[in-house]
């Protein structure tokens, strides 16, 4: 597919890139990238900053959160240190990800999703503290508000979605495994939480 805009392989941008249309990044961007259309990072691309777009295909390195309104796909050469959020998330074998993975929602930005989060938060408030501590334990990063809200909704709002993601996403897999017991027997997770965190960490280290 031809992208409307291209940042070439020898290019360095220190600043933000935003606007309409699709964008292919082959070089380096030190700043946030937010566009309405599709976004692609070539194998040699480096972005230090957040990415948002419709369908985001990452073949390069990203240090920052990635939010896709349609999908986020990490190819076998992709590396991401940051959280992934999109209705659909794909990861190829060989992709490296460190951060939380949420395959849900379709709002343009995870930060402006108050309507969605209240809607999914309502059913089971008991689970929230446990999920929050699990979130902080396994990741140790990301803002409090987003972390807890995202996990809360992941646990029950979109089970088919995250289960689907678990098939090919190790990070989502561990998160899902940690959450499964909490759903059957409600209260104990406060104790379970750190263990789940340690398990997730161990998994991360093995990779």
């Amino acid at each position, binding site marked *: 597919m031809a992208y409307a805009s291209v940042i070439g392989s020898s*290019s360095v*941008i*220190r600043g933000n890139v935003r606007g309409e249309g699709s964008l292919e990044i082959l070089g380096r961007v030190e700043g946030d990238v937010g566009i309405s259309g599709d976004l692609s990072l070539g194998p040699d691309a480096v972005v230090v900053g957040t990415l948002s777009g419709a369908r985001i295909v990452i073949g390069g390195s990203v240090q920052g959160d990635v939010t896709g309104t349609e999908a986020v796909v990490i190819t076998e050469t992709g590396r991401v240190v940051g959280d992934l959020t999109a209705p659909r998330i794909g990861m190829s074998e060989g992709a490296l990800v460190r951060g939380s993975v949420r395959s849900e929602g379709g709002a343009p930005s995870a930060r402006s999703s108050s309507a969605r989060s209240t809607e999914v938060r309502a059913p089971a408030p008991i689970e929230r503290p446990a999920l929050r501590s699990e979130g902080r334990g396994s990741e140790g990063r990301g803002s409090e508000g987003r972390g807890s809200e995202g996990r809360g909704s992941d646990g029950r709002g979109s089970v088919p979605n995250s289960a689907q993601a678990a098939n090919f996403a190790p990070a989502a897999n561990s998160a899902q495994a940690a959450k499964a017991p909490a759903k059957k027997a409600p209260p104990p997770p406060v104790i379970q939480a750190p263990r789940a965190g340690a398990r997730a960490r161990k998994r991360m280290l093995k990779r």
Partner: protein
Amino acid sequence: MAGNVVGAGLIVEGEFTTDEEVVIEGTVRGTLTTAESLSIGSDGVVEADLRALSVVLAGQVTGNVTANSRVDIQAGGRLIGDVKAGRLTIADGASFRGNVDMDV
């Protein structure tokens, strides 16, 4: 195909450095440096200091332009800023306000 394309609707802000050709149909703010040619299309809007091998300007530029070889301001092009280049052409229908330094 050009190495860099800032398409219509895209906004790049900050310091933009490259060794490849650049085509601007969108908006660039800050500074832009390329070792190759730079083309600013008729819908391009630039509020930046520009350095390039050569510059073809059909859009709007506010900022100083430095080219190692030449600067061509085409009809419809609009430049507010100084030009430093060995060669400069200004087409009929272009607008330009600024100083010219041709290294004489």
